């Protein structure tokens, strides 16, 4: 067994004092695709945002517990979140290219990171890896906003890759895309898996089953008395197992579509 990329220990997250995620413990392994599934509002986005400290940007968010990244706690006192985010890239649900040229979008990360090498070459390489190069190579100076939604999302992936991160986090990257664009993104993830560790949040169970190696199932637990609710990790393991012989009744109900 390889060293895990992430080792999450007893993670609790709350927003303005309301618990949103309770006592999550799991390991994420390199060069694998880890899928996070669960009903809406159970804390999938909250969880994934903890992995690159994007929750720091949410006013009132509080994170407790440990998120060990290659053996180092990214919530440690001497860790700069900016450095963390340069190693751990993120792709969002809605494609969000900057209103700049295609080239400048991809070059954004390298530029702010003080990249010294051949920028043209890096941009081309990133676009190739995001399977977008052939479609855009003749209009690099054109606005990224003129691309289709699926192309924009691949551009966002290229932009994330261009900083040469170690992990790519994707929060429902295909939910705004049509089936063909979705398949392209999924194929792309299989490619990227050779070099990166990928964590993907998805609502789409078939997608999780198709693309991922491991699956984590989060679920909302409700306290009947106070009517407060928070997310917990119910089950985590190889994707095949989660979908064919889940150990927990709630997982079984969810993956078989009985609720959620």
């Amino acid at each position, binding site marked *: 067994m390889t060293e895990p990329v992430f080792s999450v220990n007893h993670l609790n997250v709350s927003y303005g004092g309301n618990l949103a995620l309770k006592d999550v413990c799991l390991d994420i392994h390199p060069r694998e695709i880890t899928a996070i599934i669960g009903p809406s509002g159970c804390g999938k986005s909250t969880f994934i945002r903890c992995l*690159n400290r994007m929750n720091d*940007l949410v006013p009132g968010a509080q994170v407790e517990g440990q998120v060990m990244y290659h053996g180092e706690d990214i919530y440690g006192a001497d860790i700069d979140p900016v450095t963390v985010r*340069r190693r751990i890239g993120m792709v969002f649900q809605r494609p969000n290219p900057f209103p*700049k040229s295609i080239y400048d979008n991809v070059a954004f*990360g390298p530029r702010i990171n003080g990249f010294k090498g051949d920028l043209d070459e890096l941009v081309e390489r990133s676009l190739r890896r995001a399977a977008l190069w052939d479609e855009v190579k003749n209009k690099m100076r054109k606005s990224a906003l003129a691309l289709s939604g699926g192309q924009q999302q691949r551009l966002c992936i290229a932009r*994330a890759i261009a900083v040469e991160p170690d992990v790519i986090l994707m929060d429902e990257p295909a939910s705004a895309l049509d089936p063909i664009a979705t398949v392209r993104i999924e194929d792309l993830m299989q490619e990227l898996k050779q070099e990166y560790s990928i964590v993907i949040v998805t609502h789409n169970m078939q997608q999780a089953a198709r693309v991922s190696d491991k699956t984590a199932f989060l679920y909302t637990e409700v306290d009947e008395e106070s009517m407060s609710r928070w997310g917990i990790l119910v089950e985590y393991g190889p994707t095949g197992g989660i979908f064919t012989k889940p150990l927990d009744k709630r997982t079984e109900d969810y993956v078989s579509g009985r609720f959620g």
Partner: protein
Amino acid sequence: MRAPAQSNDARPLSLSALARGRGFGRTLDRVFGWTTAVSGSLVLVILAFMVLTTTNTALPVFTSEGISFVTGTEWLPSRGVYGILPFIYGTLVTSTIAVVIAVPISVGVSLYLTELAPSWMKGPIAYAVDLLAAVPSVVYGLWGVFVLLPLFLQPAAEALSSVFGFLPIFKGPATGLSYFGAGVVLAIMIIPIISALAREVFKAVPADDRLAAYALGATRWEMIREAVIPRSRPGLVGATMLGLGRALGETIAVALLVGSSTKISASIVQPGYSMAAIIANQFQEADEQGIRALVGIGVVLFAITILINMAARLFVWRLVAER
């Protein structure tokens, strides 16, 4: 607006039946269309009327002075000489000074308010800025003369001239009652206007853009520079233009501070005049021809304002088209 053609027989029957059934709504629609069209054209009519009547009043001066009305540097109403270049110059110089000072400060204030300030401070500061925008200009003018002039404008003008006096634009003898003094007070007046707008412009930058920048490892400053500012550029030009428009037309504060000299001066720390200020100051004493000349200044001021506005529109339009 045009109602769908009735004679279109190719349409399925059900559709035309549907349209007939909504006759009342369509009548209302037409009434609404007419009302808006009338009020819209009314604005144009008023505008045209203003331009025509003022130009007509000033026509004798325009014809007797010819082009030297706007190129002449001598303003001697007693001898019937009307050259208004010093005032055009003064208006442009004081407004430019105002914009050059106000824009960076306004952008800084609004960036601070939208991006950096702790949330409990945002409300009060934003409110104070909005209040400043509501202060009448005569108050700014009086405050400028009685407080700012001895406290800051006079010493600052002297300091500028003693350090940079070798440059023609800072040549002495320096006084606070000058283009510079008027420009500074104008800047203070338009800062609230520009920053109130700039704040809205920055707020309108989508959260997605900010998150995208942060997720790529941008610091807050890099996020502002690369995500917020580029998105806001057209809006900032618009905000600047609104401030500039206010500065160009401002009358009383400039009249109080500009120094009221009809001589043109290259040095911004020497007294001058502006178009709006001379109209206000000399309207009472002017003879008939003098009044025609002052109205003529108004026409030219109006033309300049329109020209600048059109240029700004063109610029914003190109900025937006570029992306």
